[in-house]
Structures are given as structure tokens and as C-alpha cells.
């Protein structure tokens, strides 16, 4: 059976509602932003039910055409029984209330893939068939993956346990993409990682560098060299025809107009997360377990609902108001991303209005490599007379946001 493509579904017109079902995980990934991961905070069905009752009971506040119910952890599939119960309740209630989301919903998961094959998980996938999308995180080659993604107690790498589930996953979700996060010490492995993922049959690699201030001197050069090497391989070996890597995008690296290109990048505030304690957050990155230096930014809870005043800053945030002059004048600004949660965490005051620019030199390196990639690719296509054909069939990767 074929299942849906993760994430890209109804991009922009769907509301994402995230249940942080557990903060526990089998792994202790070295880069994990979830600083406060622990095993005690598991969502009860009661809490999930209250959240659902509030959300479905306030259709006026959730007017988007569609909805993505997103389940994250820790590792969400550790709580598959609870998730199954939540999804059953969601379906029954949407039906009972004749809710406008009843015909337009998805259940979405980001998993480490370790227990993907287990019966309960598989039963859940089959039961919800066309409404499920699943992304498995795999970092690249075994070496690269096992550098970061290690078991909590033994520190053993998890690669083998994940990769054995990839064929089943791809059989069920042939167009599935994977998300890769690159930090400073991962830079030298970018080329081999992307190619390895392609070789596993994953056609879409959504990859981004972390927003945190982790970058060392010279990292931008390593990054640029890796991307140029990757560009050469993707082009020379023809991968561009049906594989995508989100590092290469035609739309990045252009100046941006202050007036016309003033949208916020990140979707915080247009999403909603709920945790085990029943607190609502504008996005999971604002929950305490994701923050280093700041207090959680709670915008309500399942008992009292959302405090609309606390959403106002998120819903009126634009690019220019939060960006330093340097970014407004930047010649290569387009595609230079930010994460509202990281902005908040890194800001000098308790504000979401101070853009963190730790990725500046990495974005500039990416832009140079992109210029190289597109110049090289277009020239090749023109010489082969295949430019038009390419434009028609080109495979776009999703912009990697968070």
C-alpha cells in the first residue's frame, strides 16, 4: 500500500497541531536540542482529550482548511498505544462534530525509526492508511549516523537498527524524505551522507545546518567545499533528474525587498503544541525541554484555553522588525532562515523579536555553492538541449524550516 508524502501536504493551508506525547527516547543524540529530555513526562490520554476538546470545540480559532496532527517526542512511537487512542478519539470527534477537518486531516510522525517494524506501529499505519505520513531521521552513512545518534545507556550507534526498517518504510512511503541536521563536526561528511541516503532509495533529502551558535572558524569553507563536491557529483552522475537535496535551491541568495518580502520565516504561532502537562506552546521549541537559557513560553493550557494576547506577537511578527540592518541590506538574504524559538533562546532580552544570525557565514557559503551548482547544471542542460525538459519535470525539495 502507498502512503502520503510527509510534510509537504497542504503546505501553508494546514494548521499543525503537535502533541508532545513523551519526552523519552531510546537515543541520546549528541546534537539533540531537547536539553530537558526525561522519562517522567508522558502525556495522559485525559490531557490529550482535553486538548482535543478545546481545539475541536473552537472551530472559529482554527479556521485553516486542513490539519496536520503531529506526534513528536522524544520518540513518539514509544507511545503508540496512546497515539492510537488519541487518533481514534480525534476521528470520532471530528465526525461527531461534523468538523470541517474531518475530510482533511493527516497524522504525521518524526521518528528515529527504531521500532518502525513493530506490530503495533505497523497496525497503526495500516489502520490509518492514507492519512499517515512518517519521516524517519537517518543522518547519512553508518559512521556519520553513529557519531551522533547513539543509544542512551550504551552509547552504541543506532544505524543498523534504523536502516533495516528503511525498505519497509520506502515500500509504504515511496516518496518519503528524510531530514538531516548538520552541526559543526558533521560538515566533512555531507557529501557521503547525502549520497548514502540516495543509495538507500531516499529521493528527497531535506537537510539544514543548525541555527545554534556552534560554528567554528573555517566551517564555512569546509561547508562550501563539501557542497561544491556534492554539486559536481549530483550533476555529473545525473542525480538531479530524480533526487533532491534541499541545500540546492534556485531561490536562495537574492536581496530581499523590505516591503514586499517582509514575511516571517518560521511558522511559530500558526502552529500549536501541547505537552504532557497540558500546556500550549506556539511551537515545540518554546517548551522548557527545548530551551537552554529562557523560560518556557506558555500561551495557555487545556483547562483555560489559549490566551490570545500571547499569540499577538507571533501573528504580527515580520522579517524586517526582527532583523538587524545587516540582514536588511544583505545581498544574499533570500533563503537565510531562522527559527523563532532559537531567536528567543539566544536573544539579549525576553523577546522573539531579535533575529539570531549565527548561521550568517554558513548561509553565505551555501549561496556561493548554489551559484556554482545552478550555473553548472544549467550550462550542461543547455548544451544537451534539455533545459526545458528539466524545468518541466524538476523535483523540488521542501524548504526545510525547522
Amino acid at each position, binding site marked *: 500500500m502507498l502512503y502520503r508524502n510527509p510534510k509537504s501536504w497542504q503546505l501553508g493551508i494546514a494548521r499543525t497541531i503537535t502533541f508532545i506525547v513523551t519526552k523519552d527516547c531510546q537515543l541520546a543524540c549528541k546534537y539533540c536540542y531537547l536539553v530537558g529530555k526525561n522519562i517522567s513526562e508522558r502525556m495522559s490520554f485525559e490531557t490529550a482529550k482535553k486538548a482535543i476538546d478545546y481545539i475541536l470545540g473552537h472551530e472559529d480559532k482554527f479556521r485553516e482548511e486542513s490539519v496536520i496532527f503531529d506526534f513528536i517526542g522524544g520518540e513518539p512511537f514509544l507511545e503508540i498505544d496512546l497515539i492510537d487512542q488519541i487518533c481514534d478519539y480525534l476521528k470520532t470527534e471530528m465526525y461527531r462534530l461534523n468538523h470541517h477537518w474531518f475530510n482533511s486531516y493527516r497524522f504525521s510522525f518524526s521518528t528515529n525509526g527504531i521500532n518502525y517494524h513493530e506490530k503495533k506501529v505497523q497496525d497503526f499505519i495500516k489502520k490509518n492508511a492514507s492519512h499517515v505520513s512518517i519521516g524517519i531521521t537517518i543522518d547519512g552513512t553508518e559512521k556519520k549516523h553513529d557519531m551522533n545518534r547513539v543509544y542512551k545507556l550504551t552509547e552504541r550507534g543506532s544505524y543498523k537498527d534504523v536502516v533495516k526498517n528503511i525498505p519497509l518504510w520506502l515500500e509504504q512511503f515511496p516518496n518519503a524524505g528524510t531530514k538531516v541536521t548538520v552541526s559543526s563536526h558533521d560538515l566533512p561528511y555531507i557529501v557521503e551522507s547525502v549520497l548514502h541516503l540516495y543509495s538507500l532509495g531516499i529521493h528527497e533529502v531535506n537537510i539544514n545546518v543548525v541555527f545554534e551558535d556552534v560554528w567554528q572558524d573555517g566551517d564555512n569553507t569546509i561547508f562550501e567545499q563539501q557542497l561544491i563536491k556534492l554539486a559536481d557529483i549530483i550533476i555529473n552522475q545525473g542525480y538531479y533528474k530524480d533526487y533532491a537535496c534541499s541545500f540546492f535551491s534556485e531561490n536562495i541568495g537574492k536581496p530581499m525587498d523590505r516591503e514586499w518580502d517582509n514575511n516571517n520565516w518560521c511558522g511559530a504561532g500558526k502552529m500549536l503544541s501541547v505537552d504532557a502537562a497540558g500546556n500550549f506552546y506556539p511551537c515545540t521549541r518554546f517548551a522548557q525541554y527545548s530551551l537552554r537559557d529562557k523560560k518556557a513560553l506558555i500561551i495557555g493550557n487545556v483547562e483555560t484555553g489559549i490566551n490570545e494576547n500571547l499569540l499577538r506577537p507571533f501573528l504580527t511578527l*515580520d522579517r524586517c522588525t526582527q532583523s538587524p540592518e545587516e540582514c536588511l541590506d544583505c545581498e544574499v538574504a533570500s533563503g537565510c532562515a531562522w527559527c523563532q524559538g532559537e531567536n528567543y533562546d539566544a536573544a539579549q532580552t525576553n523577546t*522573539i*523579536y*531579535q533575529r539570531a544570525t549565527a548561521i550568517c557565514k554558513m548561509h553565505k557559503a551555501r549561496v556561493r555553492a548554489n551559484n556554482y551548482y545552478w550555473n553548472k547544471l544549467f550550462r550542461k542542460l543547455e548544451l544537451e538541449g534539455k533545459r526545458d525538459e528539466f524545468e518541466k519535470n524538476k523535483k523540488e525539495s521542501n524548504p526545510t524550516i525547522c
Partner: protein
Amino acid sequence: MLEYLIIQLDDTSTSYCHYKIGKKERRLIPLEMLKAGIKFGMLENLMIQFVYPDYKLPDDYAEAIETIDHSKIVSSLCENEVLKAEADVIIFHEWTELSLAQLDEKKSYVLRTAKADLFDRYLFLKDVISKVMRLNIVITDVETFTEQDFEKYKQILHTLSEHIEKEYAAGKAPQFNILTDRMMLDKMNNCNAGASNITLAPNGKFYVCPAFYYENEEDSIGDLEHGLDIKNPQLYKLEFAPICRHCDAYQCKRCIWLNRKTTLEVNTPSHEQCVVAHLERNASRELSDNIRKHGTFMLEIDIKGIDYLDPFDKREEW
């Protein structure tokens, strides 16, 4: 640009705005600090406003204060009658006090009131408005307004507006912040704490406004010794306030402190603050139209008809 320096002379100095006095014990600013504060104001070319406590200050303080041009903000409960007579602004915290006071037609007064008192006793304001040069109302619990409160407030503004119209028709021009300010303004005229004014507290540290001091002494923006150090200073400016910069309720205080309290961001107002300010704006529009029936009046100020009470609701159009 910084223009004003507010000096809180004592921890028990009167409140002239939305906040409550957050401290009960007297703590007079040390004399040397006061002098340093005055010098800071002179060097930065700031107009100084002194906020007084209710007890009489030592003479050497009074002397130091007189070394600079300034204004005096004094409570109606101040025991120093001479000071009250000299005050530029007198603050009332209580309706009964106001009803018993001898009002001076050349002075400005502030009445700090909870909404409930205002809703009960507003008719009495007609009398006050006619007697003084200027009356400012500060509602101390704006953030608690409900839909019903908005409705009541609208009616109150309407009633008081009729009174002011009569005064105008009789050739007078009373000043009453919530109704007449907007009629005269063609651009924002907000509190501007953190942008055009800052506060020096008795501990020698600077704050965005006294409310920030009372809420958390650690929340300072510099001190006399090392100078000002405002983090994210742009966020106190109108251009960096996404809702307010699209707004024309020019008389609104745009209270930075309430912003932070209600939305956690100094640059973002609450729904309640916006609606209250728009009810005032719309009432000013009506008043201005009505005054024009009696003759030409402020023709250069055109307050447009609008179909919203909270500019946030129009954000898709910006």
C-alpha cells in the same frame, strides 16, 4: 531620541500612571545620586520630571532640584502644601479626594481610577473637566476590560463628549485626554517609555519607567555610574511595533509595561488596550464633528471612519 528623564525621588513616590507603587518603605534617593542624576540630565539635554513622595523632602533636596529647569509630579495626598501649590501635575488616586479638592483652573490633574469606579462615578467628571486646565484619566486595570466593559466605556465617552461639546459651544476649550487629545493630533503621541523617556530610581539605576522598577529591580537599563545600557533599544520605538505603527489612535498611551505584562513583548499591545484606545479615538471623531457644527475647528485634522476596534484584526491588509 531621549528627551525626558523621570526621577523617582523616593521608593514611595506617587504613581502617575498605570502601575501601583510597589514599595511601602521610604527610601529617599541619596543626595549625591540626585545631583548626579540632574547632571546626567543636563549632559544628555533631557527635560527632568521629579516624582515626589507624600512627605516633605529635606531642604538640601529642594535646593538641588531647583538647580535645573524641571516639572514636579505630586500626589494630592502630599503633606507639603507649598509643593502642591507649585506642582505642575497633581495626581489623584481616589474619587472622594478629588471631589473634596480645591481645583486650580491653571493646573493639570491626573485621576488614576479602576474601571469600576469610573463606570459608577463618571458623571462627576463633567464638573472637574470644566474647572481645570487639563484632566487626564488613567485607567489602572485596562487589561481586565471585557466586552461589556467596552460597551459601558463607549457610553461613558459619549456622555462626556456631549458635555465637552457644550463647553466648546460656550467658547471654552477643556482638555480631557481620552476625548480631546486625539482631536488635536496628527501623529502618534504615546508614552514612549524606553525611547524618549527613561526613569532614574532611588537605587541609582535607570529603568524603562517606574513600573519596571517596581516589578523587578533587576530589570534596569543601566546606572549612573556606567551610563545607559538598553538591550534591544529599537523595540521601544514605534517603527518596531508591528501593530502600533499601523494605527491612528494617536492619543493612546501605548503602555510598554502593559504590553510586556499582557503579551510578553514590549512592542505588542493587548487586545484590551487597543479596543479602549479605539473607543476613545472614535468618540473623539464624533466630538470633533459635533464641535464643527458650532464653527470651524481643527480642519487640518481628519479622523477617518474605520470598521475595526483593534488594528490587529486588519493585519492581513498591511
